[in-house]
Protein backbone atom coordinates (compact mmCIF):
# COMPACT_ATOMS: atom_id res chain seq x y z
CA UNK A 1 0.00 0.00 0.00
CA UNK A 2 1.41 3.35 -1.03
CA UNK A 3 1.46 6.62 0.89
CA UNK A 4 -1.02 8.98 -0.78
CA UNK A 5 1.06 12.11 -0.22
CA UNK A 6 4.12 10.49 -1.79
CA UNK A 7 2.06 9.35 -4.78
CA UNK A 8 0.60 12.83 -5.35
CA UNK A 9 4.03 14.42 -4.97
CA UNK A 10 5.59 12.01 -7.47
CA UNK A 11 2.77 12.38 -10.02
CA UNK A 12 2.87 16.18 -9.90
CA UNK A 13 6.66 16.67 -9.66
CA UNK A 14 8.39 18.92 -12.23
CA UNK A 15 5.15 20.02 -13.78
CA UNK A 16 4.71 22.79 -16.29
CA UNK A 17 1.71 24.71 -17.63
CA UNK A 18 0.80 21.89 -19.99
CA UNK A 19 -0.60 19.81 -17.12
CA UNK A 20 -4.09 20.66 -15.87
CA UNK A 21 -5.22 19.05 -12.61
CA UNK A 22 -8.73 18.47 -11.25
CA UNK A 23 -8.97 16.92 -7.80
CA UNK A 24 -11.80 15.23 -5.95
CA UNK A 25 -13.09 16.70 -2.73
CA UNK A 26 -11.46 15.88 0.58
CA UNK A 27 -8.23 13.93 0.80
CA UNK A 28 -7.19 14.07 -2.86
CA UNK A 29 -7.53 17.86 -2.78
CA UNK A 30 -5.30 17.98 0.31
CA UNK A 31 -2.81 15.57 -1.30
CA UNK A 32 -2.45 17.69 -4.43
CA UNK A 33 -2.24 20.91 -2.43
CA UNK A 34 0.41 19.38 -0.17
CA UNK A 35 2.39 18.40 -3.28
CA UNK A 36 2.63 22.09 -4.14
CA UNK A 37 -0.16 24.55 -4.86
CA UNK A 38 -0.52 25.54 -8.52
CA UNK A 39 -2.85 27.89 -10.39
CA UNK A 40 -3.70 24.99 -12.71
CA UNK A 41 -5.04 22.86 -9.85
CA UNK A 42 -8.83 22.95 -9.61
CA UNK A 43 -9.71 21.60 -6.16
CA UNK A 44 -13.23 20.47 -5.36
CA UNK A 45 -14.79 21.28 -1.99
CA UNK A 46 -18.10 19.70 -2.99
CA UNK A 47 -19.70 18.44 -6.21
CA UNK A 48 -19.05 14.85 -5.17
CA UNK A 49 -19.16 12.56 -8.19
CA UNK A 50 -18.31 15.37 -10.61
CA UNK A 51 -14.49 15.34 -10.80
CA UNK A 52 -14.04 13.02 -13.80
CA UNK A 53 -16.61 14.83 -15.94
CA UNK A 54 -15.14 18.23 -15.04
CA UNK A 55 -11.92 16.72 -16.39
CA UNK A 56 -13.76 15.64 -19.54
CA UNK A 57 -15.09 19.14 -20.24
CA UNK A 58 -11.63 20.57 -19.64
CA UNK A 59 -9.94 17.97 -21.86
CA UNK A 60 -12.34 18.67 -24.73
CA UNK A 61 -11.79 22.42 -24.35
CA UNK A 62 -7.98 22.19 -24.15
CA UNK A 63 -6.91 19.43 -26.57
CA UNK A 64 -3.28 20.59 -26.58
CA UNK A 65 -2.90 20.20 -22.80
CA UNK A 66 -2.86 17.09 -20.62
CA UNK A 67 -5.65 16.80 -18.08
CA UNK A 68 -5.37 14.58 -15.02
CA UNK A 69 -8.18 14.01 -12.57
CA UNK A 70 -6.89 12.82 -9.20
CA UNK A 71 -9.77 11.57 -7.11
CA UNK A 72 -10.73 8.98 -4.52
CA UNK A 73 -12.68 5.74 -4.70
CA UNK A 74 -15.69 7.20 -2.88
CA UNK A 75 -15.88 10.22 -5.17
CA UNK A 76 -15.59 8.04 -8.27
CA UNK A 77 -18.22 5.59 -6.99
CA UNK A 78 -20.72 8.43 -6.71
CA UNK A 79 -20.27 9.32 -10.38
CA UNK A 80 -19.64 5.94 -11.99
CA UNK A 81 -21.71 6.92 -15.02
CA UNK A 82 -18.78 9.18 -15.88
CA UNK A 83 -16.89 6.12 -17.10
CA UNK A 84 -19.62 5.50 -19.68
CA UNK A 85 -19.72 9.16 -20.73
CA UNK A 86 -15.91 9.36 -20.99
CA UNK A 87 -15.76 5.94 -22.67
CA UNK A 88 -17.91 7.29 -25.51
CA UNK A 89 -15.92 10.54 -25.89
CA UNK A 90 -12.42 9.03 -25.44
CA UNK A 91 -10.43 12.27 -25.38
CA UNK A 92 -6.72 11.64 -26.10
CA UNK A 93 -5.58 13.94 -23.32
CA UNK A 94 -7.55 12.77 -20.26
CA UNK A 95 -6.29 10.59 -17.41
CA UNK A 96 -8.36 9.66 -14.37
CA UNK A 97 -6.22 8.51 -11.45
CA UNK A 98 -8.13 6.99 -8.54
CA UNK A 99 -6.48 6.91 -5.12
CA UNK A 100 -8.19 3.81 -3.77
CA UNK A 101 -7.96 3.05 -0.07
CA UNK A 102 -11.28 1.20 0.04
CA UNK A 103 -12.65 3.67 2.56
CA UNK A 104 -14.49 6.96 3.00
CA UNK A 105 -11.63 8.74 4.71
CA UNK A 106 -13.31 12.08 5.25
CA UNK A 107 -16.30 10.77 7.17
CA UNK A 108 -14.83 8.31 9.66
CA UNK A 109 -13.10 5.68 7.55
CA UNK A 110 -16.16 3.61 6.75
CA UNK A 111 -15.52 0.87 4.21
CA UNK A 112 -16.37 1.85 0.63
CA UNK A 113 -17.69 -0.42 -2.11
CA UNK A 114 -14.17 -0.89 -3.49
CA UNK A 115 -13.14 -2.07 -0.03
CA UNK A 116 -15.93 -4.63 -0.35
CA UNK A 117 -14.62 -5.83 -3.70
CA UNK A 118 -16.09 -3.52 -6.37
CA UNK A 119 -13.48 -3.08 -9.12
CA UNK A 120 -13.49 0.43 -10.62
CA UNK A 121 -10.82 -0.43 -13.19
CA UNK A 122 -12.89 -3.33 -14.51
CA UNK A 123 -15.88 -0.99 -14.79
CA UNK A 124 -13.80 1.58 -16.69
CA UNK A 125 -12.55 -1.15 -19.03
CA UNK A 126 -16.10 -2.37 -19.62
CA UNK A 127 -17.05 1.21 -20.53
CA UNK A 128 -14.60 1.17 -23.44
CA UNK A 129 -11.56 2.83 -21.87
CA UNK A 130 -8.71 0.97 -23.54
CA UNK A 131 -5.81 1.90 -21.27
CA UNK A 132 -6.50 0.93 -17.66
CA UNK A 133 -3.85 0.29 -15.05
CA UNK A 134 -3.41 -1.00 -11.53
CA UNK A 135 -0.55 0.68 -9.69
CA UNK A 136 0.91 -0.82 -6.53
CA UNK A 137 4.51 0.46 -6.49
CA UNK A 138 6.30 3.80 -6.66
CA UNK A 139 8.01 2.58 -9.86
CA UNK A 140 4.52 2.15 -11.26
CA UNK A 141 3.70 5.70 -10.16
CA UNK A 142 6.80 6.97 -12.00
CA UNK A 143 5.62 5.21 -15.18
CA UNK A 144 2.15 6.62 -14.68
CA UNK A 145 3.59 10.12 -14.41
CA UNK A 146 5.28 9.72 -17.80
CA UNK A 147 2.15 8.21 -19.35
CA UNK A 148 -0.02 11.09 -18.09
CA UNK A 149 2.37 13.75 -19.42
CA UNK A 150 3.44 12.24 -22.74
CA UNK A 151 0.99 9.45 -23.59
CA UNK A 152 -2.03 9.48 -25.86
CA UNK A 153 -5.50 8.07 -25.26
CA UNK A 154 -7.90 8.11 -22.34
CA UNK A 155 -6.45 6.43 -19.27
CA UNK A 156 -7.96 5.22 -16.01
CA UNK A 157 -5.54 4.13 -13.29
CA UNK A 158 -6.21 2.82 -9.81
CA UNK A 159 -3.46 3.44 -7.27
CA UNK A 160 -3.62 1.31 -4.12
CA UNK A 161 -3.01 3.60 -1.19
CA UNK A 162 -2.98 2.99 2.52
CA UNK A 163 -6.04 4.02 4.52
CA UNK A 164 -4.02 6.35 6.72
CA UNK A 165 -5.19 9.78 7.77
CA UNK A 166 -2.74 12.50 6.86
CA UNK A 167 -2.40 15.95 8.39
CA UNK A 168 -4.84 18.35 6.75
CA UNK A 169 -3.41 20.60 4.03
CA UNK A 170 -6.15 22.95 2.97
CA UNK A 171 -6.22 24.98 -0.24
CA UNK A 172 -8.43 28.04 -0.55
CA UNK A 173 -12.13 27.27 -0.36
CA UNK A 174 -13.11 30.21 -2.55
CA UNK A 175 -14.47 28.63 -5.73
CA UNK A 176 -14.46 31.87 -7.69
CA UNK A 177 -10.79 32.42 -6.88
CA UNK A 178 -9.95 28.84 -7.94
CA UNK A 179 -11.82 29.33 -11.22
CA UNK A 180 -10.37 32.74 -12.04
CA UNK A 181 -6.75 31.85 -11.29
CA UNK A 182 -7.06 28.69 -13.38
CA UNK A 183 -8.45 30.56 -16.40
CA UNK A 184 -5.89 33.34 -16.00
CA UNK A 185 -3.05 30.80 -15.98
CA UNK A 186 -4.41 29.48 -19.29
CA UNK A 187 -4.46 33.00 -20.70
CA UNK A 188 -8.28 33.18 -20.76
Amino acid at each position, binding site marked *: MLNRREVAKALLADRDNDLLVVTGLGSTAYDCFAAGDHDLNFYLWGAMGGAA*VIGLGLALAQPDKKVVVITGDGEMLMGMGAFATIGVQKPDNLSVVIFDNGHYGETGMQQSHTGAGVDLVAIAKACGIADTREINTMDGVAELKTRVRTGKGTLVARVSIAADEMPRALPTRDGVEL*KLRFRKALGL
Partner: protein
Amino acid sequence: MTASDSNPTAAWPEEIFDILKRAEVRQVGYVPDAGHSRLIKACQGNPDMHTVSLTTEEEGIALAAGAWLGGQRPALLMQSSGVGNCVNMLSLAKSCRFPLLTLVTMRGEWAEFNPWQIAMGQATPQALEMMGALVYRVDSPDQVADTVEAAADMAYNGDNVVAVLLSQRLIGRKQWVK
Protein backbone atom coordinates in the same frame (compact mmCIF):
# COMPACT_ATOMS: atom_id res chain seq x y z
CA MET B 1 -44.90 2.31 -27.30
CA THR B 2 -42.74 4.84 -29.03
CA ALA B 3 -42.98 8.57 -29.01
CA SER B 4 -42.66 10.54 -32.21
CA ASP B 5 -41.75 14.17 -32.75
CA SER B 6 -45.10 15.75 -31.96
CA ASN B 7 -44.53 18.93 -33.92
CA PRO B 8 -42.08 18.27 -36.74
CA THR B 9 -42.68 21.56 -38.56
CA ALA B 10 -42.06 24.03 -35.72
CA ALA B 11 -39.21 26.44 -36.45
CA TRP B 12 -38.04 27.03 -32.88
CA PRO B 13 -35.56 24.14 -32.55
CA GLU B 14 -33.59 25.61 -35.46
CA GLU B 15 -33.90 29.08 -33.96
CA ILE B 16 -32.36 27.81 -30.71
CA PHE B 17 -29.57 26.12 -32.66
CA ASP B 18 -28.78 29.39 -34.47
CA ILE B 19 -28.58 31.21 -31.14
CA LEU B 20 -26.21 28.58 -29.69
CA LYS B 21 -24.01 28.97 -32.78
CA ARG B 22 -24.04 32.76 -32.57
CA ALA B 23 -23.24 32.58 -28.86
CA GLU B 24 -20.22 30.39 -29.73
CA VAL B 25 -21.37 27.49 -27.55
CA ARG B 26 -18.77 24.74 -27.97
CA GLN B 27 -19.89 21.98 -25.60
CA VAL B 28 -23.44 20.68 -25.50
CA GLY B 29 -24.22 18.04 -22.88
CA TYR B 30 -27.55 16.30 -23.18
CA VAL B 31 -29.79 13.60 -21.85
CA PRO B 32 -32.18 12.88 -24.73
CA ASP B 33 -35.74 14.10 -24.76
CA ALA B 34 -38.23 13.91 -27.62
CA GLY B 35 -38.73 17.67 -27.39
CA HIS B 36 -34.97 18.24 -27.91
CA SER B 37 -34.48 15.65 -30.66
CA ARG B 38 -34.12 18.11 -33.54
CA LEU B 39 -31.85 20.44 -31.60
CA ILE B 40 -29.63 17.52 -30.53
CA LYS B 41 -29.34 16.39 -34.16
CA ALA B 42 -28.46 19.90 -35.31
CA CYS B 43 -25.74 20.21 -32.64
CA GLN B 44 -24.32 16.79 -33.53
CA GLY B 45 -24.08 17.91 -37.15
CA ASN B 46 -22.02 21.00 -36.29
CA PRO B 47 -18.25 20.36 -36.31
CA ASP B 48 -17.66 23.31 -33.96
CA MET B 49 -19.70 21.73 -31.15
CA HIS B 50 -18.74 18.82 -28.93
CA THR B 51 -21.98 17.00 -28.16
CA VAL B 52 -21.67 14.86 -25.04
CA SER B 53 -24.28 12.23 -24.27
CA LEU B 54 -24.63 12.06 -20.47
CA THR B 55 -25.75 9.16 -18.29
CA THR B 56 -27.38 11.58 -15.85
CA GLU B 57 -28.06 15.31 -16.03
CA GLU B 58 -25.79 16.23 -13.12
CA GLU B 59 -22.84 15.25 -15.30
CA GLY B 60 -23.88 18.18 -17.47
CA ILE B 61 -23.24 20.64 -14.63
CA ALA B 62 -19.76 19.13 -14.14
CA LEU B 63 -19.05 19.09 -17.89
CA ALA B 64 -20.03 22.76 -18.10
CA ALA B 65 -17.62 23.66 -15.29
CA GLY B 66 -14.76 21.90 -17.06
CA ALA B 67 -15.64 23.49 -20.39
CA TRP B 68 -15.62 26.99 -18.90
CA LEU B 69 -12.36 26.37 -17.00
CA GLY B 70 -10.88 25.48 -20.38
CA GLY B 71 -12.33 28.49 -22.17
CA GLN B 72 -15.37 27.03 -23.93
CA ARG B 73 -19.01 27.99 -23.52
CA PRO B 74 -21.30 25.18 -22.38
CA ALA B 75 -25.00 24.41 -22.74
CA LEU B 76 -27.09 21.59 -21.25
CA LEU B 77 -30.21 20.06 -22.81
CA MET B 78 -32.50 18.03 -20.60
CA GLN B 79 -36.11 17.41 -19.66
CA SER B 80 -37.69 18.58 -16.44
CA SER B 81 -37.26 15.26 -14.63
CA GLY B 82 -33.49 15.74 -15.03
CA VAL B 83 -33.53 19.00 -13.09
CA GLY B 84 -34.03 17.01 -9.91
CA ASN B 85 -30.89 15.02 -10.66
CA CYS B 86 -28.88 18.25 -10.83
CA VAL B 87 -29.71 19.79 -7.48
CA ASN B 88 -26.56 19.10 -5.45
CA MET B 89 -24.23 19.47 -8.44
CA LEU B 90 -25.60 22.99 -9.00
CA SER B 91 -23.59 23.87 -5.86
CA LEU B 92 -20.55 23.69 -8.13
CA ALA B 93 -21.93 26.32 -10.48
CA LYS B 94 -23.11 28.54 -7.65
CA SER B 95 -19.97 28.30 -5.49
CA CYS B 96 -17.66 29.07 -8.40
CA ARG B 97 -20.04 31.25 -10.46
CA PHE B 98 -19.73 29.04 -13.51
CA PRO B 99 -21.98 30.20 -16.36
CA LEU B 100 -24.42 27.74 -17.86
CA LEU B 101 -27.33 27.97 -20.25
CA THR B 102 -29.72 25.06 -19.84
CA LEU B 103 -32.76 24.39 -22.00
CA VAL B 104 -35.35 22.30 -20.21
CA THR B 105 -38.23 20.65 -22.03
CA MET B 106 -41.16 20.44 -19.63
CA ARG B 107 -43.16 17.37 -18.73
CA GLY B 108 -45.88 16.89 -16.19
CA GLU B 109 -47.62 20.22 -16.60
CA TRP B 110 -50.05 20.13 -19.55
CA ALA B 111 -51.81 17.25 -21.32
CA GLU B 112 -49.44 14.85 -19.56
CA PHE B 113 -49.98 11.18 -20.33
CA ASN B 114 -47.68 9.85 -17.59
CA PRO B 115 -48.70 10.76 -14.04
CA TRP B 116 -45.21 9.94 -12.71
CA GLN B 117 -43.87 12.97 -14.60
CA ILE B 118 -46.07 15.39 -12.69
CA ALA B 119 -44.21 15.53 -9.34
CA MET B 120 -40.87 16.64 -10.77
CA GLY B 121 -42.43 18.69 -13.56
CA GLN B 122 -44.36 20.76 -11.04
CA ALA B 123 -41.28 21.17 -8.81
CA THR B 124 -38.89 22.08 -11.65
CA PRO B 125 -38.93 25.92 -11.46
CA GLN B 126 -38.66 25.90 -7.65
CA ALA B 127 -35.82 23.33 -7.72
CA LEU B 128 -33.83 25.53 -10.08
CA GLU B 129 -34.56 28.73 -8.17
CA MET B 130 -33.72 27.03 -4.88
CA MET B 131 -30.20 26.42 -6.23
CA GLY B 132 -29.77 29.97 -7.49
CA ALA B 133 -30.58 29.59 -11.18
CA LEU B 134 -32.43 32.28 -13.12
CA VAL B 135 -35.54 30.77 -14.67
CA TYR B 136 -37.28 31.93 -17.83
CA ARG B 137 -40.33 30.25 -19.27
CA VAL B 138 -41.56 30.06 -22.85
CA ASP B 139 -45.15 29.18 -23.74
CA SER B 140 -45.43 30.20 -27.38
CA PRO B 141 -43.22 29.69 -30.44
CA ASP B 142 -42.77 33.42 -31.11
CA GLN B 143 -41.11 33.90 -27.68
CA VAL B 144 -38.48 31.19 -28.05
CA ALA B 145 -35.69 32.97 -29.91
CA ASP B 146 -35.93 36.16 -27.92
CA THR B 147 -35.97 34.37 -24.58
CA VAL B 148 -33.11 31.98 -25.36
CA GLU B 149 -30.98 34.84 -26.67
CA ALA B 150 -31.64 36.89 -23.52
CA ALA B 151 -30.87 33.85 -21.38
CA ALA B 152 -27.56 33.25 -23.19
CA ASP B 153 -26.55 36.87 -22.50
CA MET B 154 -27.44 36.51 -18.83
CA ALA B 155 -25.50 33.26 -18.56
CA TYR B 156 -22.25 34.04 -20.36
CA ASN B 157 -21.99 37.76 -19.61
CA GLY B 158 -23.01 37.46 -15.97
CA ASP B 159 -21.65 34.09 -14.83
CA ASN B 160 -25.13 32.80 -14.02
CA VAL B 161 -26.93 29.51 -14.38
CA VAL B 162 -29.89 30.38 -16.57
CA ALA B 163 -32.65 27.89 -17.37
CA VAL B 164 -35.18 28.31 -20.13
CA LEU B 165 -38.22 26.14 -19.52
CA LEU B 166 -39.77 25.14 -22.85
CA SER B 167 -43.35 24.48 -21.84
CA GLN B 168 -45.18 21.29 -22.60
CA ARG B 169 -47.81 23.32 -24.45
CA LEU B 170 -45.10 24.74 -26.73
CA ILE B 171 -43.64 21.31 -27.45
CA GLY B 172 -47.06 19.83 -28.12
CA ARG B 173 -48.84 16.72 -26.99
CA LYS B 174 -46.59 13.70 -26.92
CA GLN B 175 -47.86 11.26 -29.52
CA TRP B 176 -48.08 7.75 -28.11
CA VAL B 177 -48.19 5.05 -30.74
CA LYS B 178 -48.82 1.38 -30.01
